[in-house]
């Protein structure tokens, strides 16, 4: 059943701040609604107790993608379809475009927002691995003001973030990469369309000659929440690019995933897939056949 929440549709950021300041409990921000509305129907406890629903789609600043000071900002009401079509994003953040294209269906991508994807923080959120490798930060507003925090710190546990009740994420801030990166996003679902990720990964690699100068890797659905593997990244910087190195990376990431999740019923299947898939992904993009 649809709960009898009170519906607000602020038209400016100031109006949004005022509403956030007046309300107390069980406030929820509505952007795409593709998790919230079916959540009502499925009687998900996360949504049925909502008393005040704040629709942020009529705030023009939150519908824009813009480039400034070496950064790109994506507003909180920007949909996956808008991200996919945007020239700035296509130019600087191809992995984000690739991940966005794998989300749901045309109908879902026309409503669902990239910010909503990680605020909901389902382990399978497809935008998270690319945003993490691109070092995304997010801007949060509250009646008291605004602050910026790295996405990696914002995500706490599955379906849990640092966001407080009277706060709203207003934009994603992505630093424009200054190096030339090779990279890819990989998603394995149970089918190709309208599927929930079982395994997802993104990586970026900057090389000079045949040496790894910088390496970034982030997981999605294989760990409880999306995370970067900073120790592994550091360990392989300065290493020579070879099939052996890629095997070592794949093996190290697999071990780290196992450490994070512990043994599960699916481990016997998933672990070799993660390792083999990552190895092939590195080999295909940065290995012998790509040179």
């Amino acid at each position, binding site marked *: 059943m*649809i*709960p*009898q*929440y009170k*519906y607000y*549709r602020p038209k400016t950021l100031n109006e949004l701040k005022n509403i956030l300041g007046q309300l107390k409990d069980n406030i929820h921000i*509505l952007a*795409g*609604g*593709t998790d919230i*509305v*079916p959540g009502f*129907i*499925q009687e998900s406890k996360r949504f049925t107790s909502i008393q005040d*629903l704040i*629709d942020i*789609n009529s705030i023009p600043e939150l519908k824009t993608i813009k480039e400034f000071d070496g950064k790109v900002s994506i507003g909180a009401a920007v949909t996956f*379809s808008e991200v996919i079509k945007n020239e700035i994003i296509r130019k600087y953040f191809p992995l984000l475009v690739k991940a966005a294209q794998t989300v*749901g*269906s*045309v*109908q*879902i991508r*026309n*409503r669902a927002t990239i910010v909503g994807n990680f605020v909901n923080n389902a382990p399978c959120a497809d935008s998270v691995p690319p945003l993490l490798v691109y070092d995304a930060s997010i801007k949060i507003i509250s009646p008291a003001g605004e602050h910026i925090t790295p996405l990696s710190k914002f995500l706490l546990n599955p379906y849990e973030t640092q966001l407080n009740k009277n706060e709203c994420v207003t934009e994603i801030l992505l630093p424009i990469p200054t190096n030339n990166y090779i990279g890819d996003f990989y998603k394995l679902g149970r089918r190709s*369309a*309208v599927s929930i990720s079982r395994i997802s990964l993104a990586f970026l690699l900057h090389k000079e000659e045949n040496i790894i100068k910088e390496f970034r890797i982030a997981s999605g659905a294989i760990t409880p929440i999306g995370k970067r593997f900073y120790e592994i990244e550091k360990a392989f910087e300065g290493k020579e690019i070879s099939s052996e190195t890629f095997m070592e990376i794949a093996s190290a990431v697999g071990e780290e995933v196992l450490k994070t999740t512990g043994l599960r019923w699916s481990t016997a299947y998933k672990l070799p897939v993660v390792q083999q898939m990552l190895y092939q992904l590195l080999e295909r993009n940065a290995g012998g056949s790509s040179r």
Partner: protein
Amino acid sequence: MIINFKLNGKEKSVTISNNKRLIDLLRDDLKLTGTKEGCSIGECGACTVIINGKAVTSCLVLAQQVDGCEVITVEGLADGDKLTKLQENFMKYGAIQCGFCTPGMLMSAYALFLENPTPSREEIETAIEGNLCRCTGYKPIIQAMISTASEE
């Protein structure tokens, strides 16, 4: 709450007393039952309508959200008794069996043609990725869409 929006080309003003989804507003209040409810969670595409030129599943939209928008449902395609080329081709190629997915399928197809009158086969397949059909195996549907595109 009063919701003002354009529905199938006509201005509408609807008063709703309870919170509801767009699909409920269309089917229960406005008796436009061409839009079907299948899965209720945005996976089957049966409830697809067009909002401001974009295909969306009406089970994932709240009625209040269409205030100020332009909505097209399957009832808005034909001009009186005159069907669109797309609908004619659905019949010609047997793109319909039980018919439950048809309204949603037509709306996803129509939204694609609004944006791109001459889509490739790949673009056609992507456009209907979010529409399940358990009868036809999709081939006649894709054929009907390819024919519509080639007649443009």
